[in-house]
């Protein structure tokens, strides 16, 4: 019984979103169609894959504001290299470049000790500017069939990008829970001081986490530009906030120390599902803005409110039993 209540408590946000989805499922006919579901899964993977990397970053107590600019920069570079070489190596190059840009952010945060918010804010300006400079502000397109397949193709009827997200989520989960560097990432987020004293390499973990964020963005950039057949330096403005929203909705705390890759991915799917349903409901796009914001507020306030209620309960239970748990 206690296990169940614990589970419910840890997944409040996701369960609330699930409830909303079920409600929409029952009430809208068009929402129930298979095609619509598949397109939601596809949309979700563009956010979810970057979310996987961002989860690492947020677990360390950091944050990456540069994702939106980075995805534009990487997508543009990807298209330019593809046009020049026609080779799949372009995709590999972009993945490497994404990891490198992420690591650059990580070095600024870990070694140069610039707060993550500011370091990635600077990167937000720089990457977007570079994307404009490289292309001169013009869109670039590329439409070789193999490349288009990446973002549009299906395996056994399921979008490839969604399957890729699942595989990456699984790998990232192992990386986070089962490897030394992953455990260090969590330790740094919990208490940098404690993990330093225990002889862990904090800086390396932080740089690694930002590198993962960059890598996630790089994979998304390939998928998105393949989906659109083109890329332009203006694209994906505000993307970083969507990614951060998915991660936070998944229950990863912004102050760091805990989080789950699978919850991020699930939250991305639910988030896209709900905005998709609102469109199908023919809700005015301006009103969708407001409803989205309200859902965010509701989701974010659930945990604090439960915390407040718990505190009250603990107080009521009087002080001789020391309340453990809780951060």
């Amino acid at each position, binding site marked *: 019984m206690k296990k169940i209540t614990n589970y419910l408590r840890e997944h409040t946000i996701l369960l609330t979103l699930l409830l909303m989805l079920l409600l929409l499922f029952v009430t809208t006919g068009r929402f129930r169609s298979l095609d619509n579901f598949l397109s939601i899964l596809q949309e979700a993977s563009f956010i979810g894959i970057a979310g996987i990397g961002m989860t690492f970053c947020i677990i360390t107590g950091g944050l990456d504001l540069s994702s939106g600019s980075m995805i534009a920069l990487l997508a543009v570079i990807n298209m330019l290299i593809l046009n020049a070489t026609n080779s799949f190596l372009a995709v590999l190059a972009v993945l490497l470049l994404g990891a490198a840009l992420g690591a650059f952010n990580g070095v600024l945060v870990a070694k140069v000790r610039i707060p993550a918010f500011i370091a990635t804010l600077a990167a937000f300006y720089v990457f977007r500017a570079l994307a404009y*400079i490289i292309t001169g502000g013009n869109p670039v397109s590329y439409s070789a069939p193999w490349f288009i397949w990446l973002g549009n193709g299906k395996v056994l009827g399921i979008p490839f990008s969604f399957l890729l997200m699942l595989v990456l989520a699984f790998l990232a989960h192992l990386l986070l829970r089962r490897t030394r560097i992953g455990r260090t990432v969590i330790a740094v987020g919990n208490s940098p001081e404690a993990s330093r004293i225990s002889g862990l390499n904090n800086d390396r973990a932080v740089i690694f986490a930002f590198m993962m964020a960059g890598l996630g963005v790089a994979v998304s950039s390939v998928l998105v530009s393949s989906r659109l057949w083109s890329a332009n330096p203006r694209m994906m403005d*505000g993307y970083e906030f969507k990614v951060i929203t998915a991660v936070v909705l998944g229950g990863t705390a912004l102050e760091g120390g805990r989080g789950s890759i699978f919850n991020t991915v699930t939250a991305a799917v639910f988030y896209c599902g709900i905005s998709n349903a609102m469109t199908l409901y023919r809700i005015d796009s301006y009103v969708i803005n407001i409803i989205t914001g309200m859902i*965010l*507020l509701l989701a974010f*306030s659930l945990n604090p409110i439960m915390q407040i209620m718990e505190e009250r309960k603990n107080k009521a239970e009087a002080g001789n039993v020391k309340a453990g748990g809780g951060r």
Partner: protein
Amino acid sequence: MKNKINVYTVSRFVTGKYFIFVLFAVVSAFFAMLAPALCTPDSLRNVLVSAALTAISGCGMTFAITLGGFDLSAGSIMALSTCVIASMIPEAGIPLAILSAFAVSVLAGVINGLIITKLRIQTFVATLATQVIIKGLGLIYTGGLSISVFGYTRMKVFSNAQILGIPLPVILTAAVFLVCQFLYSQCKFGVYLRASGSNRKAAELSAVPVEKVTICAFVMTAVTACMSGVITVSQVLTANASTGGSFALNAITVVVLGGTSLSGGSGFLGGTVIAAVLISIIENGLILLGYSDDIQRLVIGLILIASLTVKTFMTPLAEKEVAE
């Protein structure tokens, strides 16, 4: 580490509160040499006028950051207030329109503050959500269209008028700065603000009204955003609810560049204003040198990184350990 004392004193000066002044001197000297056209009175006036928007909203943002938070919704509040002003001018007249915009933004600030204090949501996510909501409200209010008030040239006063040769936006900036500085350093509010920002728990235990202070700080960011909105409408005589995308981030940039610490507890309003002018010099200087706005963004990003890097590496080790 031969001349330890020497390095220590120099680096203290350079990396301390006054770092922004050093940076300002270096960068403006650089542009004064490369682009002499920047030094004419007209162009200097332009520099100051274009600094006004970020300087004013930066002053408000300094309060939020001193609390250890952010206000990402400032851009949406600015956009909403421009829409309120532009839509009300034809019927209600200019003064009433501006008053209503201020009322709306005070309300927005109070709501931000209540969400943060009562629901205990972190400022980053709370204002991220209200940013979306306020923008949505603005879009519904205007139907997504731009509102033009080209006929009402009296509105131009807020950007065109000059007193003793000084443009009104600059005077407004100075006034906002003085009021904020007074609140920050001379009033109880400022003491409470710094106390809540540096250690919230301790402040609560010392009977500092942390919640009220938080709400006031977010009202300040909203009101200053609205003031920037007034100047914006006056400059372009149009309003659109979907503007203001990078407004909040620009304001945060100048606050941080000015030397306010993101960890809260110590704000530096003078630095914020100087940093806003610095950014404006960079932008105008680069335009005079014939560069596009892509290069401007690149330079601003690099200067942000460079200035914080210099600060980190010049801060003496002893101080670093204390800070940690």
